[in-house]
């Protein structure tokens, strides 16, 4: 059986990975939102479904879809998601000429990508009424959306790796160094475990939890949500991360080198080579750990905490379950 210090260091590491992963998630969200990644991927998915850029433009101009674009964004905003029913409405209006704003550029089915045209024609022929046709188009659309979700997940995973590398180098997140510090400094270990406990008990959360306000706030059955922020790191957690990360000690070494051997060529490069040699394995481990994502580390932290609570002193209070 492992001793308590080992378990506490494991708790500390799981907690630190959780906080770093939360930072990655938040950055991921900011980038995805700034570059409209979801919306662009959705448009790409619809383009691959119908195979005609002209038709995609027409569909996006249809009021059923245009009204889904976020009103607060400038330029030519795209909706981040389109319910299947709205897609079906827009596409049937396009080909029947019904509905508002569809008569300007009414495309023919034959202008579609062969496969899409064939599928749409089959659906039209086999449907007994417009409702059945709509239902079939919705199913067709939903299948493509599963693929779009897959694309987006893969994109997020790739971006998470990239962000993890940036974060690791920026903050010098060396897992081995962090473990050594937690192992050798019992006061620091206790502080980190306490902070981990607080996150589990009070602030919780495996990913940034959105804080949302509603339009028409007083009415129970109208209005729409608008995200105003998210719950990520507490001030105490930020302080803790600042004290555990950074380049301070490595830069001290560089300054000392400069004073001992002033004017030496390639000093900075040699210094970085030495630093990389010391930290490389720790950096790689951190990048791999961060790629597991915040939910994984939150779950792991919970398990370690449960293990620790199972072995607590008899007079230590047990957390209650309602």
């Amino acid at each position, binding site marked *: 059986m492992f*001793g308590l*210090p*080992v378990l506490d*260091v*494991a708790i500390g*590491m*799981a907690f630190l990975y959780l906080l770093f992963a939360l930072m990655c998630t938040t950055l991921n969200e900011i980038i995805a*939102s700034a570059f409209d990644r979801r919306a662009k991927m959705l448009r790409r998915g619809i383009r691959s479904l119908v195979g005609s850029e002209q038709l995609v433009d027409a569909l996006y101009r249809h009021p059923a879809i245009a009204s889904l674009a*976020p009103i607060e964004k400038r330029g030519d905003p795209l909706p981040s*998601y*389109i*319910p*299947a*029913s709205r897609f079906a409405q827009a596409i049937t209006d396009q080909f029947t000429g019904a509905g508002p704003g569809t008569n300007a550029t009414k495309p023919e089915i034959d202008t579609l990508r062969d496969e899409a045209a064939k599928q749409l024609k089959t659906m039209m022929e086999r449907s007994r009424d417009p*409702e059945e046709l709509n*239902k079939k188009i919705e199913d067709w659309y*939903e299948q493509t*959306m599963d693929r779009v*979700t897959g694309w987006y997940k893969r994109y997020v995973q790739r971006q998470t790796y990239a962000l993890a590398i940036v974060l690791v180098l920026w903050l010098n997140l060396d897992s*081995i160094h962090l*473990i*050594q510090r937690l*192992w*050798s400094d019992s006061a620091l270990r206790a502080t980190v475990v306490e902070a981990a406990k607080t996150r*589990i008990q*009070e*602030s*919780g*959360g*495996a*990913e940034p*939890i*959105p*804080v*949302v*306000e*509603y*339009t028409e706030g*007083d*009415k*129970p*059955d*109208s*209005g*729409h*949500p608008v*995200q*105003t922020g998210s*719950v990520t790191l507490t001030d105490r957690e930020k302080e803790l991360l600042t004290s555990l990360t950074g380049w301070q000690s490595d830069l001290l070494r560089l300054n000392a080198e400069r004073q001992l051997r002033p004017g030496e060529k390639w000093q900075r490069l040699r210094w970085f080579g030495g630093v990389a040699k010391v930290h490389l394995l720790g950096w790689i*481990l951190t990048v791999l*750990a961060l790629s*597991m994502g915040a*939910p*994984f580390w939150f*779950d*792991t932290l*919970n398990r370690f905490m*449960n293990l620790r609570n199972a072995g607590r002193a008899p007079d230590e209070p047990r957390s209650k*379950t*309602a």
Partner: protein
Amino acid sequence: MLKTSRAVAVILTILASSVWCAGVASNLVLKKAWAEKYRNRLSIEAKVTILHVSAKEQDADIHGGSRKNQIGLPMVAEILNGTQPTQKATRTAIGPGQDGAEKTIYGAWRLWFEHPPHGGGTQCQDFGNQSPALCSSQALGGSDSNPDHSFEIHPVFAINQVPSVGKSSMVLLPDNKGVKDSAKAFQDYGNKNQILTIARSGSGITLNSKMIGDNYVRMRIRITKAKSSATTTKRDDGSIDGGWVLADVISDDDDRVLAAGARIFYFLDSAPGDALQKSAAGTELEILGMPRLNLDTILRVSEGKDAVAVPLPIEFVAVALTSTP
């Protein structure tokens, strides 16, 4: 005493061995005004477009899935014991039909992270189809009879005025394979890291939790506070449709209190309703309970806070009486 390098190796091994299956939490965003309206109600009545109806489920219920409705969430309406001959009229009424028209569905509301979006994500209560990007999980996942959802009308009491449950159908059937006993259920609620994190704003509430199982829990309860005029529940038209009592849930074998003072809701026109209305404090009953999140507790514990994490606040709707004293 382990040397530092050995300790590092051991800790890395522990962390690496943590790669076992982890449940992923998801978010559910609710409008506070809506939650305030339903915090002490048994039921909800809403116009719902049913997209597809399932075949018989493991628990003998029938599901009707919806992605468009007055509640503003992807949801499922569930007919209790829907495969029974007594439920034929309701089965017909819930079907999406040819016209895809909305149906007015009346039943017990249920917030429960039973089928949240796979792999995490956020679903938002949205009454205007203007959801921000963060709510994208609500339109994409799951089949039409069972879309990814954390909201249900379950059990359904009536569809377009066609009554569904009643004394004949609110019973525990032998072919209901989805029943859990209370000791196991409460062990799961308490020990599976089932934490509910609540983030509040002026008009919104975000709930964050992992998936939770269980539709039905067979449980022995001891009434601690009988029904009163303050614990009756009303529909939108002001008519009383049920109420609640407070009860301790106790274990079958050793009388341990598994949950103290849980709210047990009942529907008037049902066998558990009859029994719970008549029960004085101290009475013991065995019921089939359907767990749901307690909106009243959620609003109370998060009042005045930006974010708070609590053990799952649970209450039950009594859907059958399994034995009387």
